[in-house]
């Protein structure tokens, strides 16, 4: 589905990614230490930053220079790191915003409210006033409303209570099982490897290891991360 080839990218004059290649796969996990460049890679995948070198292919099509909102229109969705939502809008508006203009928009919103009861409870509260975990659930719900082909998740369980972490993990597995592709950054290596079809380890912006999900041992992955 999504393929990144030989990517060089960074911020201003700071190079963060050096020749990174991420293969296509149903669920692809990106692992690495703090600052390895995982988020940068995902930001690049959704189009928030442009690579100085390399190509991004989606569904076999070159989308390297496509704006993020067009990528979303083609079936990508993105949950950024750090529980981001539109603080000035209510929870419900956050969802409607994405549902607007879609057929069955209302049903899509309701489906997500069912999935995350906390959101239904605070539907009319400004998202900026929600707790961190509630905001994170909102971010995931917002992404799911678009019924994406590819879901990009940047540490989706960060700051989430364990019961819901389990739910989210289940949800990810379900979605993947249902045919959705997932590009996942996750610190819970155990879960990541269990869910992933393939994984990529980043260290200081270089790919130090790639492999098939289920088979890899966490210890070898850890070792690759530390390089």
């Amino acid at each position, binding site marked *: 589905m999504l393929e990144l080839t030989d990517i060089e990218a960074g*911020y201003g004059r700071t190079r963060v990614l050096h020749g990174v290649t991420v293969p296509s796969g149903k669920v692809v996990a990106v692992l690495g230490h703090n600052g390895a460049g995982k988020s940068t890679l995902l930001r690049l995948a959704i189009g928030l930053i442009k690579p100085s070198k390399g190509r991004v292919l989606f569904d076999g099509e070159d989308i390297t220079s496509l704006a993020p909102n067009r990528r979303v229109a083609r079936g990508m969705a993105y949950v950024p790191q750090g529980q981001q939502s539109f603080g000035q809008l209510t929870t419900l508006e956050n969802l409607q915003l994405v549902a607007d203009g879609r057929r069955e928009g209302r049903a899509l919103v309701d489906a997500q409210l069912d999935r995350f009861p906390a959101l239904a409870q605070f539907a009319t509260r400004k998202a900026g006033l929600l707790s961190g975990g509630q905001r994170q659930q909102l971010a995931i719900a917002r992404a799911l409303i678009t019924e994406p082909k590819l879901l990009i998740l940047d540490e989706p369980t960060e700051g989430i209570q364990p019961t819901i972490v389990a739910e989210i993990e289940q949800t990810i597995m379900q979605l993947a099982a249902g045919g959705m592709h997932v590009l996942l950054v996750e610190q819970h290596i155990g879960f990541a490897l269990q869910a992933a079809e393939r994984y990529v380890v980043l260290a200081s912006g270089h790919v130090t290891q790639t492999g098939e999900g289920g088979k890899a041992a966490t210890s070898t992955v850890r070792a690759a991360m530390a390089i």
Partner: protein
Amino acid sequence: MTKKPWISLGGIGVFAVLLLAVAPLVLSDHWLNNLGKYCCWAIAAVGIGLAWGRGGMLVMGQGVFFALGAYSMAMHLTLESAGDRVPGFMVLYDPLAPLPAFWEPFRGAGFTLLAIVLLPVVVAGILGYALFKRRVKGAYFAILTQALAVALATLISSTIRETGGDTGLSDFKYFFGFVLNDPANKIMVFLIAAGLLVVCLLVVWQLYRSRFGELLVATRDAEERVRFLGYDPANVKLVAFVVSALMASIGGAMFVPIVGIITPAEIGAAASILMIAGVAFGGRASLFGPALGAMAVGWGQSSLGSTWPDGWTYILGLLFIVVILFLPNGLSSLPARFAAARRRPEQKAAPSAATPELEEVRS
């Protein structure tokens, strides 16, 4: 910034020599006088650089403080010229009424000098305290200060007998006992203004390399965070604001004997914005940028405004656009840019100077 403070100090030295020794020798009376005028704006600009460039407070109403100094000085000089009589323009409206009470103390030279220093400190102190404690910042702060300048200019325009109104105060004969028409005295006045500019540069030089300078930048970038380190950001900003007001007042005070006239137009919205233009042009956060930028804008107005008045307005407009758009840190950031471009790209560069986001306003 703080890496090579001594180079900056050397720069100030060179600047001082150029201004205080070379300029009086090579420039004609007219251009020396103009240079004196630019120095006055530059003094105010140095203050703006401190408040805006380092402190993130876009002070759009420095005209208010410029006015405090300028009118204090102008009232003193008017009274000095008028001697025992009531100034001529007042006679026109009410020939029999005495001098307005608030003029009386300005007969004294000591009081006047004190007023030039204390008035802006007190006014900026009260205003800043009120605004910063209430966490007024960003665009709100800019617009409020601008409105203050407009209000003051309107007030002065409409109080003709008390302040000279739109016509302003002019026709000064003496400057603390010195005859203003005497070329030697004119040079003296210039040297005072230029000297004060150098002093102001030294003051901000020390402030920028001090811990206070770092704290100010920290407050600019994350005011709330500073609070959680045990500082009251209002106080930090207040200090920068008051110092910058003081500088504007000093600039205004010297403007009067050099230019020979002060009117509300020099303190209203347009004038206040022009001061900012210089600062933006030169580089808001740098040491020399604001002063040199203000002088350059002043010079542009004098020379280009003469040869090509219509064009000058367009140039000034384009200057705003191009500099802010492409060089948010002003011309003084150009050398660093070239240097950075030559460096190896792998090196980490600091994220571009963050200007305070409007978001702050909402928190």
